[in-house]
């Protein structure tokens, strides 16, 4: 009994590390004693921003190393192992190299718009972190339209990518930008629908509210809506331009996509933001579908942000796994997969969520019994949908492209020249030697 009393005196104190918000509240109260309230709001805002930057800055350096090392393991090679112990200082060396490199701008580039994107791309990348709940009260801004904020902010990144690709005045950069924009507006649809399932079912648009709903009902959303989780995972990895879906910077097709003309640290900034976005998307997948900072009561004993970081790491590993093992898809495959498979499937689950929510709210079904039944039903429906897609609705594989493409064997090379010569009935011209 006394131990419990001791514990409760610790709870909520500034040194209670389970929720760093306690420390911040102490600072706010201390400022409120002597200063006007706007200083408190500015200080907490700056503290939140510094905390976010302080976490993701070093994390990015480690993540570069982790990702390269893990992918190397998947591809049966060593990965970076020269600079520092186990190659740990490789990201630092890379960063120094990128900073020292000369920064070039194409002469025909649109100068102002060319210089802006590496800076602007940071704004959505940092803002997204603001609504991520690290604990029950631990988020920079717990908006009650958090889900919409997430979608709005991530949608603006497309514009920056387009600016980068267009202003470079390079056809490959423009190709990459157009692909990025086309893919992004397509994959936003299943992403929104997958999130809509959760919003409908939990009845809140606050991200922390969704986590608290999962805590309250003792269930994680990936069990209730597995297909939405998978669709969100794939759509997010497409929005991130990661390898199964990185057609906007496919190096075997269009040099480096929208950042072809960016050299030195400008490219480094794009790269850093892409990695940071990967991390934050893993965190959001963990938050939406894996319960976020909550883990069946473990969050009472372990700091909740540590649980979130562990789940984030697990999702991040999954993202690296898909990147390391899956080949790149073609743009038409990606598009048709989005519109013909992901959108109908997620739409189906929005309807399912509506019906099940109505059963709970209006028909008064008890959630303790209803939720397991719904989970089993939804998992069965998911498996059925996937099997149906694999058996029936799957697009037939094309062994050869039906129309001759730009770089097919039909055009260019000796064969084309020879056939041109044949067609013009010019036997006296010998093209190439037979």
């Amino acid at each position: 009994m006394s131990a419990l009393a001791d514990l409760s005196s610790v709870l909520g104190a500034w040194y209670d590390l389970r929720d760093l918000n306690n420390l911040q509240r102490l600072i706010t109260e201390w400022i409120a004693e002597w200063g006007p309230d706007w200083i408190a709001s500015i200080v907490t805002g700056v503290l939140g921003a510094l905390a976010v930057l302080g976490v993701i800055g070093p994390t990015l350096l480690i993540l570069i190393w982790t990702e390269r090392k893990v992918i190397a393991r998947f591809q049966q090679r060593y990965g970076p192992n020269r600079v520092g112990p186990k190659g740990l200082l490789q990201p630092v060396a890379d960063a120094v190299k990128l900073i020292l490199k000369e920064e070039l701008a194409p002469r025909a580039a649109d100068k102002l718009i060319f210089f802006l994107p590496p800076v602007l791309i940071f704004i959505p990348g940092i803002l997204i972190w603001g609504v991520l709940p690290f604990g029950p009260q631990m988020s920079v801004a717990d908006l009650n339209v958090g889900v919409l904020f997430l979608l709005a902010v991530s949608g603006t990144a497309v514009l920056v990518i387009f600016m980068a690709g267009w202003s470079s005045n390079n056809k490959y950069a423009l190709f990459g930008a157009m692909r990025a924009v086309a893919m992004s507006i397509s994959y936003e649809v299943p992403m929104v629908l997958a999130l809509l399932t959760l919003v409908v079912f939990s009845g809140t648009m606050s991200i922390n509210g969704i986590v608290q709903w999962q805590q309250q009902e003792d269930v994680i959303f990936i069990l209730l809506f597995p297909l939405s989780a998978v669709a969100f995972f794939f759509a997010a990895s497409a929005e991130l331009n990661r390898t199964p879906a990185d057609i906007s910077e496919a190096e075997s097709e269009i040099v480096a996509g929208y950042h072809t003309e960016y050299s030195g640290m400008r490219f480094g900034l794009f790269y850093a933001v892409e990695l940071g976005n990967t991390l934050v998307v893993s965190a959001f997948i963990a938050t939406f579908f894996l319960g976020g900072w909550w883990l069946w009561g473990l969050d009472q004993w372990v700091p909740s942000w540590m649980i979130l970081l562990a789940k984030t790491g697990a999702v991040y590993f999954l993202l690296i796994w898909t990147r390391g093992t899956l080949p790149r898809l073609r743009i038409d495959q990606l598009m048709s997969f989005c519109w013909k498979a992901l959108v109908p499937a997620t739409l189906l689950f929005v309807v399912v969520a509506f019906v099940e929510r109505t059963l709970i709210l209006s028909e008064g079904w008890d959630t303790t019994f209803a939720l397991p039944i719904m989970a089993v039903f939804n998992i069965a429906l998911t498996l059925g949908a996937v099997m149906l897609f694999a058996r029936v609705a799957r697009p037939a594989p094309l062994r050869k492209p039906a129309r001759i493409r730009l770089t097919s064997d039909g055009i260019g090379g000796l064969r084309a020249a020879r056939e041109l010569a044949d067609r013009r009935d010019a036997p006296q011209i010998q093209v190439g030697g037979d």
Partner: protein
Amino acid sequence: MSDFGFHLAFWSLAAMTIGGASMIMISRNLIHAVIWLVISMLGIAGLYLTLSADFIAVVQVLIYVGAISVLMLFAIMLTPRAERDNSQTAVRTPAAIVVILVLISTMWVVVDTDWGPARDGALSEQARLIGESLIRHYILPFEIGAILLTAALVGAIALARQDDEDAAIHADSLQRELDGESDLDPADVVDPPLAADVEANS
């Protein structure tokens, strides 16, 4: 929020909105104009935030900055001669007339409205309130909007669809391709012959 902070936010956001809007008129490059439009939209979203309308602010960013502007960029990129000077347009006079009429009617509403401080203060749970009123009181306009959007979607698909004849030819060649008998002669595709080639060959 202190009074000073609010005024600072309002005036800087208003400057951003109006400055962006004026730059749309001044800039002669269509892509630049779209980017200024985005800045103007962001300013409007910020103004919504100062009015504690966070739902509308976020939706403003989501729809106008994230979707409409991207759609505009797409339209510009797919339009031939989009690189031309922005001032060369045949509809300058009608456009000016329409804009002036819209401006006059907006100013009429501005002058006519009784601008006083809101009695109830900021609403919490705006998304829920807006959703409920859309479903209960304004269900008819809401459904009309939904039908309009669906019709637009179907219309866009109908416009972008291949002709039946075209599709049939394509499917036919696809089938033959799968059967292993190609009717597409690679030489047919190289057409017309390059002038330099003809010169070299003759």
